């Protein structure tokens, strides 16, 4: 409508503008192409320069130090090859720490995931006051792990802890939450679960809400109940998100430090190293014994463990997803084949209808089935 009402004068001025603009582009051609080529690097370089100094250099240098016997006074090291690695691995404390780390990791990630899925399914219902519940679930996330650890080590006190009081009320003998290794792992895992379940719940909730509601409608029409729908629709659709959650919680869980450090006032992992974790030991080697070479070696071992577990996770979950794919959702090739079949059957049906032969229609229907 606007163009129809433009006066000749304005049109000519527009033409002038266009002319001027083309000339500007012509002039700036060399400059703007430089601008286009160079500026992306200018945008990323501040990040990468800093990242190189505070992120990458330390990682590489840790590898160098791990092959050294580091002298704090001279502030330099002498090369000793794989000695530090050998000492770390041959130390029984390493295996205790590894066992504890895995035990705490499993106790915190498995129940946490199950709880998170369950709570997310509740939040995914059409509840009242959605924001209130969601915020309530996330509340523990803002509390520092150190604070969480202090509260829970009090609640899990061997003598006067509220947990043992409650257990006593239902007739269970008080549990030695500190001297028993497994019990201490449960207590520490509870701290982790308290802080992270809500966070993961919200991630899973978001994934649940991305599932098309038609699936549920179709299932309801087919007569599937809520539980059946959960296992047949919700869980399979969550797999990619679950992979993400599992991998991030692996990376975080195997590094656990704050909670075991604060579980008693000494912070050395218990009298018999009941809850000594790898990072807790790393701290003790580095800043208790001031043996930087060995601490660096342990850091690399920890990193390799995390990588290995991450890879195993990925392989397992990948396979699960692929299995699921062959059962319910289709691969691309299958979809293409299905489309071809569908087209063929529709064409056949059309032909059948044209010839007005109902018997033939039934036949194709059977064939498609």
């Amino acid at each position: 409508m606007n163009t129809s009402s433009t006066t000749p004068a304005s049109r000519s001025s527009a033409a002038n503008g266009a002319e001027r603009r083309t000339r500007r582009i012509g002039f700036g051609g060399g400059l703007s192409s430089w601008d286009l080529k160079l500026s992306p690097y200018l945008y990323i370089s501040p990040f990468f320069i800093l990242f190189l100094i505070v992120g990458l250099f330390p990682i590489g240098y840790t590898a160098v130090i791990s092959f050294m016997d580091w002298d704090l006074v001279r502030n330099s090291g002498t090369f000793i090859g794989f000695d530090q690695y050998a000492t770390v691995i041959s130390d029984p404390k390493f295996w205790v720490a590894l066992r504890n780390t895995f035990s705490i990791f499993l106790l915190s990630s498995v129940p946490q995931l199950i709880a998170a899925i369950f709570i997310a399914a509740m939040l995914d219902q059409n509840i009242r006051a959605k924001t209130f519940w969601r915020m309530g679930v996330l509340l523990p996330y803002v509390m520092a792990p150190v604070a969480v650890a202090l509260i829970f080590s009090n609640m899990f006190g061997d003598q006067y802890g509220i947990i043992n009081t409650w257990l006593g009320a239902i007739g269970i003998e008080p549990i030695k939450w500190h001297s028993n290794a497994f019990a201490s792992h449960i207590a520490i895992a509870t701290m982790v679960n308290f802080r992270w379940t809500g966070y993961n719940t919200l991630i899973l909730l978001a994934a649940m809400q991305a599932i098309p509601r038609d699936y549920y409608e179709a299932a309801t029409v087919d007569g599937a109940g809520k539980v059946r729908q959960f296992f047949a629709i919700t869980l399979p659709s969550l797999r990619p998100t679950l992979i993400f959650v599992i991998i991030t919680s692996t990376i975080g869980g195997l590094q656990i430090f704050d909670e075991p450090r604060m579980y008693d006032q000494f912070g050395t992992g218990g009298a018999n190293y009941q809850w000594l974790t790898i990072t807790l030991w790393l701290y003790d080697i580095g800043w208790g014994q001031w043996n930087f070479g060995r601490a660096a070696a342990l850091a690399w071992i920890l990193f390799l463990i995390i990588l290995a577990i991450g890879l195993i996770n990925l392989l397992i979950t990948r396979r699960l997803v692929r299995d699921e794919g062959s059962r319910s959702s289709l691969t691309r090739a299958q979809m293409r084949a299905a489309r071809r079949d569908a087209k063929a059957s529709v064409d056949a049906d059309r032909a059948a209808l044209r010839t007005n032969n109902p018997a033939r229609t039934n036949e194709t229907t059977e064939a498609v089935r």
Partner: protein
Amino acid sequence: MSVLTERPAAAEPEARSAARKRPRHVKGTRPGWFVYACLGVVMLASVFPFYWSLLIGSGDSSTIRDPNMSWIPGGNFFANAAKVINDPAVNFWVALWNSIVSSGLIALSVVFFSTLAGWAFAKLKFKGSNVLLVFVIATMAVPMQLGVVPLYILFSDLGWTGQLGAIIVPALVSAFGVFWMTQYLRQAVPDELIEAARVDGASSFRTFLTVGLPAARPAAAMLALFTFVSAWNNFFWPFIVLDRQNPTLPVALSLLQSNYFVDYSIVLAGVLLATVPLLILFVFAGKQLVSGIMQGAVKG
């Protein structure tokens, strides 16, 4: 595939009307008491530790041993809090100030560098962008522990151990931040908009300022929020490099417990005191945290 078989024309309107009715049924029903009961239990579990620390923190050193402990907070909270604040070993005000300054600076810096780099990765074409981005994402799997030894050596060479700078500088950039901003900007800014700005003769930087920055604002705010919270709660590295005279709040809290005799009424009063700033933040920004996590999940 079986859908194709139900082709009879007569059946279709029926199915359609059923489908039209169903959504209202599925969406409109409020769940029963069971769901609310479960959520109530979850809510109780997430609030109880806070209440427990108030309960113990407002009593005295004998409260914890009292078998008939009252479930109503006592009157000693402020006395206990004052003990925490006045404890010369804890340096509470210094810790609070350090936490605010370091977390604030880290959040600002991470947002700044991540937005710049994220814009380039999301919307500009340049050689090596894919390789670099994959590399950045891969480093997210590297644990903090892998860098602490050289960082400590570096900062003690510089004479920065015990200084706040030692915890700010290593956190100035984050791989997660770049990943987050890239993901967001990729879908938030249509390529046509950038083309249009370029046709109008805007330089690359001008395009970033006028198109990129306004679009990045919501994601930047959330990144700032999350970075602030995690910097505030960070313990491992500050605990290594800072000392008692100049701690952050988590480090100060850890000092509360390091005595041989632990008076939990004071420790838990300190815990509450140190949590109050983030609780205030949660009251104002909790909604944003919730939607930030949920948005990140869909994209991530």
